[in-house]
C-alpha cells in the first residue's frame, strides 16, 4: 500500500503524517502538492491522506476553499474507484465540504480552540482504520481544533447510525458518553465517520500525534496498523 499526503497551503500536520507512515510504519509515502491535477502513482489499493492544518487560513469556512484545489477532483475520482481516503482534522473538514462525507463541522460550542487529549470510544470495527481495534475500545488521542462540532440533519444522523458509519465518539476514560466528555458539542458525540462504502474516513482527533512511544502515547497506532491490513475495494 502506497500513501500520498496532500499538502494544501496552510497544512501543518503533513510532516507528522509522513513521519508516522514512512519512518514509524515503514510504508512508502510521498507528499502531493495541491496543484497537482492527477494521481498517476496511486491505485485502488492505495491511500490518500488529507492532513490537519489551516488550509487557506480557514478563510470563509474551514476546508471550503481547499475543496476546490486542483488535486481534489482527482481525490474524488480516486475515492469513486474505491481508493482509501483518510482526512484528519482539517482533512475531515475538507472531505465534508467536498461532499465525500456527509455533514459539516461547525465552530466548537465553547467558541475555543481546544488542544488536549480526548477519549474516544471505538463505535465500529468495520472500517479500514478500526478493524484491528476492539469494539468499544477506548483510545486517548489529542484533538486540536476550533471547528469540530459535527452537525448533520436528523435524516443524515439516522442514516449514519443505521449504516454503522460512526467510527469514533467522544467519551470519558471509562468509555461513557456524556455532555461533559464532549469537547466541542458534536451531535451524537461524533469524532469520526466513514462513507457508506467505507473507503472514505474522516476524524477530528490526531492519531499521528499518538503513534510512538517517544511521544508518550501509542493509542493512535492501532489505526495505522488497521489501515495496513485494509484490502482494496472492488472498483465501481
Amino acid at each position, binding site marked *: 500500500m502506497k500513501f500520498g499526503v496532500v499538502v494544501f497551503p496552510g497544512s501543518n500536520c503533513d510532516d507528522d503524517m509522513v513521519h508516522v507512515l514512512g519512518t514509524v510504519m515503514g510504508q512508502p509515502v510521498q507528499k502531493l502538492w495541491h496543484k497537482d491535477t492527477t494521481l498517476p502513482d496511486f491505485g485502488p489499493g492505495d491511500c490518500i491522506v488529507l492532513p490537519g492544518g489551516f488550509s487557506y487560513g480557514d478563510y470563509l469556512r474551514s476546508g471550503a476553499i481547499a475543496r476546490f484545489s486542483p488535486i481534489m477532483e482527482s481525490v474524488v475520482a480516486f475515492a469513486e474507484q474505491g481508493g482509501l481516503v483518510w482526512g484528519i482534522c482539517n482533512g475531515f473538514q475538507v472531505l465534508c465540504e467536498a461532499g465525500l462525507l456527509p455533514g459539516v463541522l461547525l465552530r466548537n460550542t465553547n467558541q475555543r480552540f481546544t488542544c488536549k487529549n480526548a477519549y474516544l470510544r471505538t463505535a465500529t470495527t468495520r472500517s479500514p482504520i478500526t478493524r484491528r481495534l476492539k469494539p468499544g475500545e477506548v483510545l486517548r488521542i489529542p484533538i486540536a481544533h476550533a471547528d469540530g462540532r459535527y*452537525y*448533520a440533519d436528523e435524516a443524515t444522523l439516522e442514516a449514519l447510525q443505521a449504516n454503522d458509519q460512526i467510527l469514533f465518539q467522544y467519551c470519558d476514560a471509562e468509555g461513557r458518553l456524556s455532555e461533559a466528555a464532549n469537547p466541542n458539542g458534536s451531535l451524537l458525540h461524533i469524532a469520526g465517520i466513514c462513507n457508506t462504502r467505507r473507503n472514505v474516513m474522516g476524524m477530528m482527533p490526531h492519531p499521528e500525534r499518538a503513534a510512538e512511544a517517544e511521544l508518550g502515547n501509542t493509542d493512535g497506532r492501532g489505526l495505522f496498523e488497521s489501515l495496513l491490513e485494509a484490502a482494496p475495494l472492488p472498483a465501481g
Partner: protein
Amino acid sequence: MKFLAEIEVMPHKELLDPQGKTVANNMKNLDIHGVEDVRIGKHILMRLEAASEAEAREKVDTACKKLLANIIMETYEYALHPISE
C-alpha cells in the same frame, strides 16, 4: 454590464451560533440590557461582469451554492445592483 451583488450568509435559524451567543451574553458588560439574541453571519460584496441580469444571477447563485455558503449550515440571500463604469 457590471453588477454588484450584496450577499448575506447566515447560519440556519435552528443552529446554535456560539459566536452570536457570546456577543449577546457580553452586552451587559457594555451596560446594554435587554438584548435577546445575536446571530452573526457574513456580508459579502462581489463585483462581476455579465451579459444580462439573468446571467449575473446565475453566476451569483452558483458562487453561493458552491463556495460562499454551505447549505447544510447556512442560508444565503442577495440583492443585485447594476453599476455604471
